[in-house]
Structures are given as structure tokens and as C-alpha cells.
């Protein structure tokens, strides 16, 4: 009878490369690696040959050369004497601003619609259902084109706002603060009389006043949480929950409003001068159309996610909660929502990802985002397709990976809690 200790060590044979589970995986991987390297080498060789045939090379120095084109909407100082690299950054910021605003607005609208969709009111839930189906099942760029068309075709020209003999053909909205022409939307610009000194360089100024306000508001939120926590502690100790809503309002709004007042907050209204509106902020219709279309489309998608998330939880859970004598409001807040959020959040984050990628459809309304600058005008002007496209894809990839890593962190934390 053989004993473990005197088992002969098996000799290595060539056949073991294929038949032994320990070596087989290595064999397969080595073969795949060789094939992958050959394929990559073939691609690189083709690129080299093609570049040589066209007399081109790979060179990123164009990023530092003069761009020579204007970008209407720029969040950091920009003019056409600045470099292509700078233009790309302006475009990237334009992409991000649409993405962020679109995510926020579509979430708000989508949650609202999703909850209404579940309403027992027949006509309301049907109406929302029709909205959701119509918007989900038609290409996104149709909505962009339609919104842009409506804005351009239905709004008056700037010159119609001109006051001749005390009357004008078109009038501004909201107590003469907002003017939507067929070119752009002009809204009031918030300004401070005594702003904090700006930091940073001229090319990348840092708005310290804004940062200060944000910090103040974040602090208020923290204090509010302390108040709520104390209320909870009191409730746990005595069984009665103290009334805190007025404290919350005071803490949340008070300091921020006081700071704004101290810094001399006021609005600069757009005014018609010469041929167009001056002052205020001008939102290009490309931006507006892109944002509205993304919001409407993704609100429909979000509504579906919210609806199915709540429905997935509600039945048995709300019955159990009612059976315990909890009222519907508390049931929703303490039982349904915490569970539904867990179902809703992962698909929501992947919606944010899709929305961010879909900002590139701004091409349909000529919005100058990352694709419009780096992958559009810069590419056409410099003829550097390879460099521009690779750089653009890399940037989009990084944004996507950042968003999906947030999702992974969230999923991991939920998984931990479930153990």
C-alpha cells in the first residue's frame, strides 16, 4: 500500500503541457499572449506603413499651437489665440457641465415622474406611462433636433425686443429678467459687490467666493445632521421626537444668506443694447437644447427605474409594515425607500454613465463639447486624426471609469451590509 510520503514525484513530460490542469492554463495563456502580440504588432505595423504612405507622424505638439477658433461657451477664460490644448479643456468642461446638469435635472424629474407613475390616479399614471414610452422609444437626437428647432423657430429675433416708441414686438419674461431669443437664452447673472480675492493664475482663476459659499453650506448641512441626530437620541430616550423643522431651516438657510448679503449679492439683468442683449448670462441654444433633450429622455428612463425599484420592494414589505401599524408616510420613509434605493441606485449610476457619454450627441446641435473641439474643429484643422481620436477616447474612458468605480464602491458597500 502506497503511503503519501513515498509517492514518486511525477516527471515532467511534454504531454503535460496539454493534459495537466496546472500547466494547461499556462499553455493556453501563452498561446493567447503570442497571438495577441502578433495581432497588436500587425496593427502597429499597419499604422506605421499607413502613416509613412501619407507622410505623417505621431506628434502631439499641435496641442500647444494656436487654435484660432472661438468657443461661445467657455467656463474658463478662452479666446482664439489660445492653444488647441486649452480649447480641448474648454470643451471637456462643457461636456462635464452638461453631464452634471443633465444628471441632476433628469434625476429630479425622473423620480417625480416615477412616483407619479405609481399613483392610483388612473389618468395621471397613464399620462406618465405615455410620456415614458414615447421618450424611451425614439432616438435621442430626434429630441435634440426638435427642441433646438422649437427654440430657433418659435422664438423672436433679438431685434424684436428693441423698444421703438415705447413698444416692442417681443417682451421679456419673469419681470423683464429673462429673454429667450432665437439665438440664445439670456438670464440674470449673479454678482457680488465685495467678492473675496481671487486665487490662482489668470488662465485658471479660482473663485474663492464661490468656494466659501459652498463650504459654508456644507457646514450648515453638517450642523443640521447634528440636530437631527440629537432629535433621534431624544426620541430613543423618551419616545417623543422634538420638533426640529424650524431649527433645520434656520441652520440651512441662515448662514449662507447672511454671507451672500454681506458680500453684496445682486443680479445683473440682460438688457437690449444695439443689436443684441448685453449683460447677464447668455446660454447658447445648443447648450439649452442638449440639456433639455438629455433631461427629458433620461427622466423617462429614470422614471422606469424608480417605478420598477419601488414596485420590486413595495408589496409584501408595505403589507408587513401596515400590519405593524405604521402609517403610509413612515412606511415609505423607513421601510420602502431604504430598500428601493438599493435596487434603484446601481441602474441609476449606469444611467449617469450613459448620459455622460450621450453628451457627445451635442454634435446634432453643434454644441462645442470635447468632441466638438478636440474631436471636431481641432481634428479638422490639424489633420491629426489618430492623435485627436485617441486622446478624446482616452478622456471619455477616464470619465466613464471614474463613474463606474463609484458604482463598484457602492455595490461593494451594499454587499458588505448584506452579510
Amino acid at each position, binding site marked *: 500500500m502506497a503511503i503519501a510520503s513515498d509517492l514518486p514525484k511525477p516527471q515532467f513530460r511534454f504531454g503535460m503541457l496539454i493534459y495537466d490542469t496546472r500547466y494547461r*492554463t499556462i499553455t*493556453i*495563456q501563452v498561446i*493567447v*499572449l503570442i497571438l*495577441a502580440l502578433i495581432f497588436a504588432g500587425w*496593427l502597429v505595423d*499597419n*499604422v506605421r*506603413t*499607413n*502613416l509613412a*504612405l501619407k507622410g505623417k507622424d505621431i506628434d502631439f505638439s499641435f496641442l500647444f499651437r494656436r487654435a484660432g477658433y472661438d468657443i461661445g461657451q467657455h467656463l474658463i477664460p478662452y479666446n482664439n489665440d489660445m492653444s488647441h490644448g486649452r480649447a480641448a479643456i474648454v470643451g471637456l468642461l462643457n461636456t462635464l457641465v452638461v453631464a452634471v446638469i443633465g444628471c441632476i435635472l433628469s434625476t429630479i424629474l425622473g423620480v417625480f415622474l416615477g412616483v*407619479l407613475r405609481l*399613483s*392610483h*390616479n*388612473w*389618468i*395621471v399614471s397613464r*399620462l406618465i406611462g405615455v410620456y415614458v*414610452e*414615447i421618450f*424611451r*422609444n*425614439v*432616438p*435621442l*437626437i*430626434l429630441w435634440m*433636433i*426638435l427642441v433646438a*428647432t422649437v427654440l430657433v*423657430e418659435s422664438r423672436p429675433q433679438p431685434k424684436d425686443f428693441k423698444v421703438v416708441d415705447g413698444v416692442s414686438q417681443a417682451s421679456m419674461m419673469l419681470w423683464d429678467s429673462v429673454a429667450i431669443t432665437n439665438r440664445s437664452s439670456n438670464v440674470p447673472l449673479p454678482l457680488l459687490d465685495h467678492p473675496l480675492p481671487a486665487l490662482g493664475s489668470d488662465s485658471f482663476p479660482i473663485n474663492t467666493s464661490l468656494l466659501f459659499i459652498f463650504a459654508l453650506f456644507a457646514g450648515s448641512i453638517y450642523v443640521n445632521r447634528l440636530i437631527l441626530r440629537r432629535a433621534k437620541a431624544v426620541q430613543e430616550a423618551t419616545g417623543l421626537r422634538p420638533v426640529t423643522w424650524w431649527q433645520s431651516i434656520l441652520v440651512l438657510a441662515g448662514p449662507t444668506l447672511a454671507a451672500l448679503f454681506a458680500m453684496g449679492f445682486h443680479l445683473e439683468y440682460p438688457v437690449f443694447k444695439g443689436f443684441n442683449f448685453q449683460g447677464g448670462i447668455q446660454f447658447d441654444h445648443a447648450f439649452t437644447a442638449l440639456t433639455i433633450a438629455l433631461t427629458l429622455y433620461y427622466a423617462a428612463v429614470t422614471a422606469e427605474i424608480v417605478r420598477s425599484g419601488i414596485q420590486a420592494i413595495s408589496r409584501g414589505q408595505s403589507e408587513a409594515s401596515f400590519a405593524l401599524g405604521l402609517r403610509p408616510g413612515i412606511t415609505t420613509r423607513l421601510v420602502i425607500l431604504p430598500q428601493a434605493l438599493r435596487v434603484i441606485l446601481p441602474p441609476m449610476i449606469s444611467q449617469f454613465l450613459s448620459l455622460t*457619454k*450621450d453628451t*457627445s*450627441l451635442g*454634435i*446634432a446641435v453643434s454644441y462645442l463639447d470635447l*468632441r466638438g473641439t478636440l*474631436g471636431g474643429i481641432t*481634428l479638422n484643422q490639424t489633420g491629426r*486624426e*489618430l492623435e485627436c*481620436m485617441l486622446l*478624446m*477616447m482616452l478622456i*471619455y*474612458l477616464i470619465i*466613464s*471609469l471614474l463613474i*463606474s468605480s463609484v458604482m463598484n464602491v457602492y455595490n461593494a458597500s451594499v454587499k458588505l451590509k448584506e452579510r
Partner: protein
Amino acid sequence: MNFVRTQMLPPQSPPVTERGAVKWLRENLFSGPLNTILTVLAVLTVYYLLSMALPWLLHGVWTANSLTECRTIIAANYGPDAIGACWAVIHARWYQFIFGFYPPEAYWRPILDFGLMFVAMTPLLFADNPRSAIKLVGVVAVLTVIGLSLAQGPLWLLALCTALMAGCFFLVLQSPARLLPVTLLYPFATIWLLWGGSIWGPVMMMAGFGVLAIVYSLLSTRIGVVMATAAGFVAACIWWLALDGAVAAALQSLIPLAIQSVPSDKFGGFVLSFLIGVSSIAISLPIGVLLALGRQSDMLLIKSLSVAFIEFVRGVPLITMLFTASLLLQYFLPPQVQFDLILRVVILVTFFSAAYNAEVIRGGLAALPKGQFEAADALGLDYWQAQRLIIMPQALKVSIPGIVSTFIGLFKDTTLVTFVGLAEPLRGITTIVRADIYWKGIYWEPYLFVGAIFFAACYGMSRYSLYLERKLMTDHR
């Protein structure tokens, strides 16, 4: 207290407040103050939308030669300030929205091809449901013949196509599986029907797969399934690269069998959308399966390659992939290889949908109980046998709703090919129509028309996928 019922009670109808329209209204529309307000708001919204859209729709003009003529007719009929839709543009140009610039005398080809697409899908979707298969093929055959009779074409052609559809119907009557040859021939038939030219090109392309099959069956017992597939693939590539063209040309000169050739730049409209969408999703499915398996693999290199591909493709917008097709793909191919734009777009869109399908199929794999893998192992099936016979049939079935959703997304996204210069219906054809001097200034009607077709197709498919999902849930498992 003892009690024994001697007479059973017959059912009675509920009290008046518990039935009929009153109850329904009270429960569904006016159950509380908030609900009443919502109802009123909703009714007002509907009224507002209808009051805007209805006159415009009802005053629509269907026959006119230009937008100005439309407006004149509306003004004459409904007063000078009336608004109305000018559907005449659709009436005059609908064929462009559907067929692009395809030669009108060849319209029968896309129509027949579209009908055959459903026939080819039947054995895959309804293999175990002959009744639905017969219904589908029957309806499609009738619609195709109607469509063909509307297209211009000689009578003998109509008779031939009718006979073809009747043959398919005859086959499905026996068993849906009898249609599998149609499914296998369909891709090559599509190439021949849509692009035209000599029949020997597609036939020789098909012969390449024949070479693959022969090499595989000769070698599979000797060197294993994977190696035999690889060898077959190499042999087929040699065939396609070295012999294919020469043999096709020789056969064409011997037996000339050709139909009018249609170059790619004539393609457009919904024919183009469907062509890109359907071929991409079909080619991407096997790639998606391999990627999903790769991502599940415990071999680090294979797993990381799959993950890298999937995450890269899912991380960039489709439009950058399309620009890659139009601007970059040429750089990565040998200088003498020239693909036309539609083919390049199909390749990149295929990559795109393969990554998305891989994730859907991975979900299907994850939904399978571990016991299925173990049972296959315990019976002595090897990896590929287990995948092919046990795992994939179940995982793919669970994945069908997800794949349909991917396809809906992809089909909507085919509109983006307009940005690389292809004449898809939404923006491509509409821009062309709007550039026409007679229709300058029109904007709602063409967009609504194209949007309505997209809506019908996507809504139909999403309902179908919902139905499948429900059916999967209730299926005996």
C-alpha cells in the same frame, strides 16, 4: 353552539356604490383632495396638448407639390391664420425615407430581404413553439407578397418571390427546424440581394465556411475541438484571401448569373438603419458569448483581455466609435485593403454591441445555478461540450430580453451614422428633403414621420421583450 348549513347561499351582486363607473371614478380619479387636483391637472395637460396638436393634425394636407402649395390649401380651407400639417412631403418622398437612393426598379430586393429576415429568425426564436412559428411566417409571407406587388417589378419576379415565400411557409408547416437552411443561407442572400452583382461572390464566400466545416470535421476527432476550429478558420481565411475572388470570377465568366449591382452610396433610409442594426447584433452575438466566457474565465490573461475590451468599448461614446470607423480604421488595416464605409461602420458597431451583449450574457451565466456546471462536470462533459449543450442554451434563453433591449438601443443609435455621412432616415434623409427648394422650411412633418416609425419598431420590440421576460418567469424551470 352547533350549526350546520343546510342550504348553500347563491352569490349576490355587490351594492351600487361598489360597482360600475361611479366606483371606478371614485377610486381611480377622485379618492382624495390631492388625487382630485392631480386629475384636474392631468386633464388640463391633455386638453392643452390636444388643442395645440389636433387642429394641426386635422388640417393636414396630403397632396401638394410644395410647402407653399400646402399653406395655400390650408389657408383656403380653414382661414388665413389656420395651422396645418403638410403631409404632402411624406406622400412625395416616403420612398426616400425607406429606401434612400436605392434604384426604384430594385425595391423588391430590400422588401424580399426584410421578409426573409423574419423567416430566418423563426427557427431560432420559436424552435419549440411551432404554432407561433407558423403564424409568424404566414403573416410575414403575406405581407412580403403584398409589399412586393406594390413595388415595381415584372410579374414573373413576383411569382418567383411568392413561390419562395410559399416554400418557406410549407417548410415551417412541417417543423420550424426545417427553416434552419434558410437561416444559414440568409446572410449571403442578404449580401447578394442588397448589393447585387454576380451571385458567385456570396456563394464563394459561403464556400469558405464550407471549407471551415470540412477541415473541422476531418480534424476534430484527432486534434480536439478548439484546435480543429482554429485550423478550419485558417483554411477558410486562406480560401477567402487567395482563391475566393479568382474562382468567383472564373465561375461568373462560365455561368453568368448576376443582378443589377447597387453601390453602397445608394443605401439610405430605414433599409440602412436595419442593415446596420441587424447585421451588427447578429455578428456580435457569438463574439459577445466568447467575451462573456472570457470574462468568467479563471485564466488571468484571458480574463483581463476580455475585461479590457468590454470596459473600453462601454467607456467611450458610440459616436467616437463611428468616427473611428470613418477616420481611423483605415490606419489599422494594410494599405491595399479598402473597406467601404458601411462595412467599416458595421464592424465598429459590432464591436460596440458585442461588449454590451457580453455583459447581458454574463448576467445570464450568473443566473444559472452552480449545480448545472457541476452536473455537466460529473457526467464527464468537457468545457466546450458543457458550454454548448448545457450552459449556453440556458444562459442565452435568459438573456434574450436583455439582448432585445440592446438591439433597441442600437437601432435607435443607428441614427448617429448621419454624422459620418451616411443617409440614415432621421437626420440624413430629412436634411436632404429639407434642402429641396419645394420643401424648404418644413420641419415637424418629416421628423414626426421618422420618429413614429422608430417608435412603432422600438415599442413593439420592448413589448415583446417584456412578454418574454414574463414568460421566462412563469416557465417551468
